[in-house]
C-alpha cells in the first residue's frame, strides 16, 4: 500500500506518552506544533478539559470575537455510485433516491432566504449522470443569485471545473478526507470514485489553485484511530497554509452518526473526547475557523458555542430538499439538533454571542 507523503505522515508523533506536566506545558505552548497537539489529544490532557476550554474560549474571543457564523446545508441529490461503508447514501443502501429539479432548487433557495441565512452549502453524492458537473454548476448559479456566500460539498473535480464554479459564484469547497489512515480508508471506501485516498487528498489543493477561496477539511471521527487522523489533518492544514497561503481553511469535526445502513463506528468518540479535540485544535490552530454541525446534540452545541467553534450550521435538513417542500424521507445521517433559526439564535444571544448571518459579500467573487 502506498505510504502517506512525508509532509502529511503523522507517524513521528504517534505512540508518544505524555505526563500530566507535559500536557500542562502544551496548554501554554507559545508556538504550538504537532508535539503540542499530540500532548493535548493525549489521555493526560483529558484531565485538563477545564483549562483547555478556558484557553480555547480566550483564543476564540480574540480571533473571532463574541460571534458565531451561521451556515445551512442544502442536499441537492442522494444519487451516489460510492461505496462508503458509513454513509446512508451509499449505492448499496436501499434508500429511495431523489434529486431536486431546478424549479425545486429555486423553491428551497427561497425558503432558506426567508430564514435570513446568507451562507449556503450545496451537497450531492459522488459524481453520477443524475447529478453531474453541469447540474452542480447550474445549482451554484441559481444560488449565487440569492446568496452572498455559496459553497459546495459534492465530488472531486478537475481544476477546470473548479474554475468554472468559482466564476459562477462559488466561494468554497468542503472536502473531508474522512480518514487519512490508508488501510482504513481502503476498507471504508469499498468501491466507486472515492476509493482512491490520494486522489481525494489532492482535491483541496486543486480547488484552491483553480480559484475557490476557502477549503473545508475534516475527518469523520469514529472511522479510525482519532490521534492518527487528527495529527494528519493538522499537518494537512499546516501544509495548505504554506502552499495555498491566500486561501481560507476551515476544520470540521463530524462524528459518525446513526444512518440507515446501521454502520457502527469502530473507534467511537465520546462527547467529552470531541470537546477535547476541538479545544486542542483551537489552541494549535488559533486563527482557523472551527465548524460544528447539527450532527451534534443541542446540549453539546450550546456548551461548545464560543468555546472553540466559531461557525455552526443551523436548522439543517440532511434530506434532499426539505426547507421549501417536504423533502425526501431519509437523510444522509440523523440530525440531532433540530432547532429552528430563531430558537438557535436565541440560545447564542443568551450566551452573549452574536449570530452572524452575513459575513461575506458577493462583490468578492
Amino acid at each position, binding site marked *: 500500500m502506498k505510504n502517506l507523503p512525508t509532509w502529511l505522515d503523522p507517524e513521528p508523533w504517534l505512540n508518544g506518552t505524555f505526563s500530566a506536566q507535559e500536557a500542562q506545558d502544551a496548554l501554554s505552548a507559545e508556538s504550538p506544533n504537532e508535539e503540542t497537539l499530540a500532548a493535548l489529544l493525549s489521555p493526560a490532557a483529558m484531565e485538563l478539559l477545564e483549562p483547555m476550554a478556558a484557553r480555547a474560549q480566550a483564543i476564540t*474571543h*480574540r*480571533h*473571532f*470575537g*463574541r*460571534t458565531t457564523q451561521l451556515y445551512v446545508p442544502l442536499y441537492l441529490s442522494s444519487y451516489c455510485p460510492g461505496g462508503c461503508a458509513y454513509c446512508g447514501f451509499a449505492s448499496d443502501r436501499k434508500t429511495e433516491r431523489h434529486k431536486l429539479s431546478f424549479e425545486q432548487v429555486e423553491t428551497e433557495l427561497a425558503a432558506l432566504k426567508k430564514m*435570513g441565512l*446568507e451562507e449556503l452549502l450545496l451537497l450531492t453524492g459522488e459524481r453520477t449522470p443524475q447529478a453531474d458537473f453541469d447540474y452542480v454548476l447550474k445549482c451554484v448559479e441559481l444560488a449565487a443569485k440569492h446568496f*452572498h456566500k455559496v459553497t459546495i460539498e459534492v465530488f472531486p473535480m478537475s481544476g477546470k471545473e473548479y474554475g468554472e464554479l468559482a466564476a459562477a459564484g462559488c466561494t468554497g469547497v468542503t472536502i473531508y478526507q474522512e480518514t487519512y489512515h490508508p488501510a482504513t480508508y481502503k476498507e471504508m471506501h469499498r468501491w466507486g470514485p472515492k476509493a482512491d485516498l490520494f486522489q481525494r487528498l489532492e482535491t483541496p489543493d486543486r480547488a484552491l489553485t483553480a480559484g475557490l*477561496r*476557502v477549503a473545508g477539511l475534516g475527518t469523520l471521527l469514529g472511522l479510525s484511530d482519532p490521534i492518527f487522523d487528527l495529527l494528519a489533518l493538522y499537518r494537512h492544514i499546516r501544509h495548505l*497554509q504554506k502552499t495555498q*497561503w*491566500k*486561501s*481560507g*481553511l476551515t476544520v470540521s469535526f463530524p462524528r459518525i452518526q446513526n444512518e440507515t445502513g446501521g454502520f457502527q463506528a469502530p473507534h467511537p468518540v465520546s462527547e467529552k473526547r470531541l470537546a477535547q479535540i476541538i479545544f486542542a485544535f483551537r489552541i494549535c490552530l488559533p*486563527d*482557523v475557523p472551527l465548524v460544528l454541525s447539527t450532527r451534534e446534540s443541542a446540549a453539546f452545541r450550546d456548551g461548545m458555542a464560543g468555546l472553540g467553534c466559531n461557525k455552526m450550521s443551523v436548522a439543517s435538513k440532511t434530506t434532499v430538499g426539505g426547507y421549501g417542500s417536504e423533502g425526501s424521507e431519509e437523510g444522509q445521517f440523523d440530525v440531532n439538533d433540530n432547532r429552528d433559526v430563531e430558537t438557535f439564535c436565541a440560545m447564542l*444571544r443568551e450566551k*452573549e*454571542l*452574536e*449570530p*452572524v*448571518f*452575513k*459575513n*461575506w*459579500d458577493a*462583490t*468578492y467573487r
Partner: protein
Amino acid sequence: MKRPIREHRARPNLVDCKLKCPLDFCKTHDTLCANEIRIMKNKTENLKLGPYTFQSRLILGTGKFSNTETMIRAIEASGTELVTVALRRFNREMPDDDLCAPLAKLKNIKLMPNTSGAMNAKEAVRAAQLGRELSGSSIVKVEIHPNPHHLMPDAIETYAAAKELAADGFVVLPYIPADPVLAKKLEDVGCAAVMPLGAAIGSGGGLSTADMIALIIRDSSIPVIVDAGLRAPSEAARAMEMGCSACLVNSAIAAATDPAAMANAFALGVETGFAARNAGLMQKREIAVATSPLTSFLQ
C-alpha cells in the same frame, strides 16, 4: 445570565483641562525640535482626515461584539466620532444582522466602510465604491489581506487600491504594515492618513512595531493612526505619546469583560497620551545629570 451594565462616568474634557500646556509656555522652551513644535501647534486642533475634523482621537472597529447593543454602548462610552464597518457585514435584507443601519442612526458618528475580505486592489476598489454608495460616506479604510488567517495587509495591493481610490475622490485611510517607505508613498498618492499596525489584528500584541511607527511619524505630513494589535489603554497612550494622531481599536474592546468600560478606558488612554505628548515629555538620558557639572574644573 446577563451581566449588569455599569454606569460610565463622562469622559473628562481634556481640551479645557489645565493639564494641557498653554502654547505660550511651550514657546519659551527653545530646545524643542521642529517636529515637536508642529505637534504643539496642533494640540488645540482637531484630528483632520481629508475635509473632516474630529475632536475624538479614538476610532472604533465594530466587528466581534456580542450584540449590537453592546457595540453601541461601547461606541457611546468611547466618545468616538468615527467608526469603521466591514462591507461584508452590511445586510440590508436582514435588519437584525446588519451592522450598518444601527451605526448610521448614531448622531455625530461618521461611518468609515472598510474593504475587509478583499484579496486584491480590484476587489477593494469595488468594495469601496459599493460601501460609499450604501453608506453615503466617502471615507474608506482600505484593508486588503489575502491571507484570511493572519490578516496581514498586502502592501502592494493596498498601494494600488489607495492610489485609485484617492484619485476617485475618496478620503483614503489605508491599513498597512509598519513600513516607513510605504507610508510616504501612500502620502504621495493622496491618502488622508496612514494606519500602520501595532501588531497582528486580534493578537493583543501591543505596539510590537513601535520603532517603525516612530520612523513613520517622524517623516509623515499626514496623520498616523495605529490600527490593530492594541490590547491595553496604556498602549494607546504610548502610541499617542509617540506622536500618533489617533488609535483604532476593536478586539481589545469587544473581547473585554465589559466592552463599554474598556472603550471608556481607551478614550482616557488616548487622551492621556495625547495630552502628555503636548505637555512635552522630558528627554530620555542615558546618564544621570549631575547637579554640579563634572567638567567645572576645566577653564
